[in-house]
């Protein structure tokens, strides 16, 4: 089982991004996803910067995958996607069917991200035929459903040709919109957003009127209010046939989280102290996502 680091979903300052990856290069993660997956207006790093950074990390021995945008609406966004597809060596994570189309036209193998709707093995097979070699399960699915999909994929005869990855740690990406909610919260129109999301490296918390944490606003993306954490489920994931466990970057405590997961995967840990303590796991157990099922 491999440990992966998903793309930074928040908008971080250029220097913070480079600092994060400098440190990550030294950490025991096997696969690194990077790139802008949320909003095309975020350009602290340009497309070429991401490709260059990816190559450096690959030279350091990491397997590197470029993540692409999840909601593609404009020609300029398709143009960026074409540049990523044509980078020459690094794999892409498709987060929109437009990316699946481009990559399969170029006969390139690719990763299908969690924003691609795969709820059954027949869908997975359609992607496999187009060149998908790894997929990330949609975050709202349960462990039980995942096991059933993989059993069906086995029966259809392609399960051994692909890898399965599970989003296991971080704020869950839940929705994408035409509207920028960060700009809206600051009373700004999207076309003049002033990049306010740079001020929220962990997103903007959205709570009920009773102060219950519900969602996290991250530009055009809405994320879970709580952090999702499947650390205790790592053994079960291994049993089902999960090949990669994905962590999603947060500005805090990532080194500890990486260490915990690494130890869990390698079977060398002794006990669990969840970070943060109020993390949730409902989706994995077929419950509402914000539920924390007692382990």
């Amino acid at each position, binding site marked *: 089982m491999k440990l992966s680091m998903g793309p930074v979903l928040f908008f971080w300052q250029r220097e913070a991004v480079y600092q994060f990856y400098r440190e990550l290069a030294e950490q025991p993660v096997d696969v690194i996803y990077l790139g802008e997956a949320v909003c095309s207006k975020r350009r602290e790093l340009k497309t070429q910067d991401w490709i260059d950074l990816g190559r450096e990390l690959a030279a350091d021995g990491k397997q590197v995958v470029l993540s692409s945008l999840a909601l593609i609406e404009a020609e300029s966004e398709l143009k960026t996607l074409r540049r990523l597809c044509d980078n020459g060596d690094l794999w892409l994570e498709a987060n929109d069917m437009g990316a699946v*189309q481009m990559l399969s036209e170029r006969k390139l193998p690719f990763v299908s991200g969690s924003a691609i709707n795969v709820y059954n093995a027949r869908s997975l097979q359609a992607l496999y035929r187009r060149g998908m070699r790894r997929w990330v399960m949609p975050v709202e699915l349960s462990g039980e459903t995942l096991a059933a999909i993989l059993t069906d994929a086995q029966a259809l005869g392609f399960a051994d040709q692909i890898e399965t990855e599970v989003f296991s740690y971080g704020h869950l990406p839940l929705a994408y919109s035409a509207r920028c909610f960060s700009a809206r919260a600051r009373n700004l129109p999207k076309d003049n957003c002033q990049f306010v999301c740079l001020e929220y490296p962990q997103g903007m918390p959205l709570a009920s009127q009773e102060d219950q944490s519900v969602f996290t606003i991250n530009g055009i993306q809405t994320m879970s209010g709580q952090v999702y954490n499947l650390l205790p489920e790592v053994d079960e994931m291994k049993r089902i046939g999960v090949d990669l466990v994905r962590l999603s970057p947060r500005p805090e405590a990532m080194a500890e989280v990486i260490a915990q997961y690494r130890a869990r995967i390698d079977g060398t840990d002794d006990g669990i102290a969840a970070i943060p303590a109020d993390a949730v796991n409902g989706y994995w157990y077929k419950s509402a996502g914000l539920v924390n099922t007692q382990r």
Partner: protein
Amino acid sequence: MMASLHPQLQQGLSMELVCPAGNYPSLKAAVDSGADAVYIGFKDDTNARHFAGLNFNDKKAFKALDYARDRGVKVFVAVNTYPQPQGWERWTKAVDLAADLGVDALIAADMGVLGYAAERHPELGLHLSVQGSATNYESLKFYHSEFGIRRAVLPRVLSMSQVRHVASQSPVELEVFAFGSLCIMAEGRCYLSSYVTDQSPNTCGACSPANAVRWEEQPNGGLETRLNNVLIDRYEPGENAGYPTLCKGRFRVEGNTFHALEEPTSLNTLELLPQLQEVGVSAVKIEGRQRSPAYVEQVVSVWRQAIDAMQANPAEYAAKHEWMAALDAVSEGSQTTLGAYSRPWQ
């Protein structure tokens, strides 16, 4: 004469009015009020309006088909949720039934369902559901080349100029939402509902499901609405309370309490009709299979008049005040918006 017209104009001349029918009375209302096509779902979680008391069993579906066909109106069937392995046969049965009915189109989103339909029932016309979340022409190319879809319904996230651009490159006909409840998130890629209630449009065909809703009267005469116990909104005595759809609640962000995602409002594109025709949109869709026959009749009648007026004379077309008033009267929060079609809204 027709053959010499620009292809987009030819398409525009036949701009299709696609109307919701949650049950047989609504279907009759839609057909009688001027729908060109009606869309229905079956009585289970295979469609994105899986609500108690709604939708059609096979007997009713045959009756509906007869009623519509006798009057020259097309019938589409939505099998547009995402089956998980445990329920796969329900979806294939729904597709088989749609094929038995001989409907004019199957509206589907899931790649597995589309593949099954294309393979087993090649005669069945396929429309990519809005739940398929295709927002660009490359994505449309995928569904067209893989499953042979004839038409796609665009998510309500594109601006008018983006619709124009997609239309100019699209390998398939396009249908857009014209009127009704407004999904603020890209359809098919929103899990807000399952995060709070365990049911989502993708998995169960339900958003903010009724069985998770609680309306609680307060000692001061006000009202609180909850979804699986999470407070969605709080109303003063006398204030008009809306259904607690998650994205339309009032929440706290940075110390302010407001409609952080979206106000309770409806989409109304009546004034964009000539532009939609001009860019080459083939069909406009009215949302609302969960609405009453009276609502369907009201809304469909207005849209029929508007489309007829627009097609008679596009240059002179203007949305009439009485049409707008009639639509506002039945809209959520009695407010309407152009939604994402208009850039400032975004």
